[in-house]
């Protein structure tokens, strides 16, 4: 089942600045909501996001409950060489997911 979408241009020129878009399916339960009977729904969020480009970290983010459900990020990086851009989300209750995209550099 699709859990995340990582969007990078399929090809780019060396030195070009490209935009990476990362979308992940997650409720991001804040820990502040209550059931109709008044019970507190426990927090369950993604807390960290890391993006690597051929293994080297190029971007990192810390999420708090204020990040909307199905978190979305768009950020940039300068293109170096062909390879893999990998996005990893980790969070509460041992949550961990990695989704990658390939980039070909002229």
């Amino acid at each position, binding site marked *: 089942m699709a859990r995340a979408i990582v969007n990078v241009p399929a090809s780019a020129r060396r030195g070009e600045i490209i935009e990476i878009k990362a979308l992940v399916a997650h409720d991001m339960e804040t820990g502040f909501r209550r059931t109709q009977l008044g019970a507190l729904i426990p927090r369950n969020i993604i807390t960290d996001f890391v993006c690597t480009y051929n293994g080297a970290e190029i971007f990192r983010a810390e999420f708090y409950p204020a990040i*909307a459900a199905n978190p979305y990020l768009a950020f940039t990086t300068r293109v170096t060489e062909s390879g893999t851009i990998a996005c990893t989300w980790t969070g509460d209750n041992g949550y961990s997911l990695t989704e990658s995209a390939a980039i070909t550099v002229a």
Partner: protein
Amino acid sequence: MKPKSTRTSTGISSRREFLLAAGGVAAGFALAPAAPAQTGSGPGRSSPPTQASAAARLEAIHKVVGTAPINKGKVTLDLPALVENGNGVPLAVSVDSPMTDAEYVKAIHVFSEKNPLPNVVSFHLGPRAGRASVATRVRLADTQTVVAICELSDGSFWSGSVDVVVTLAACTEEL
């Protein structure tokens, strides 16, 4: 229903604390918690969480900034002026920086004035970013000021803020 006023029940002082801290002058004294804010949708609107106290907000900012002064400028926060739904608010932040190996943005931290927690998100960049420009979607509990503070490679801190009006959805889904 009119959009909620930006005043808290304790008056403007707790809000001013938050803005002053973001603008570079740390107040240093704690204030009473402000009035409860409405949250977004879903089950459980019946008991909305209180907003984070002014002290908590100051502490959150000082945690990333330490005792360094926060300068106003360089940071642009882009949010809709009238938020259609507080559950999913597109937020874009950019910093005026050449993003070279010598001069770049290390981090951007976003804070909320009226949410139950002051921290919204923190981004860690570096010279490889090419541009200091990040977009995401956030939750905003009420009409408020959103503040972004960035840390540059030379250790200086800069901030920008924007006021947004947040309204609730017209019709409840709950029975």
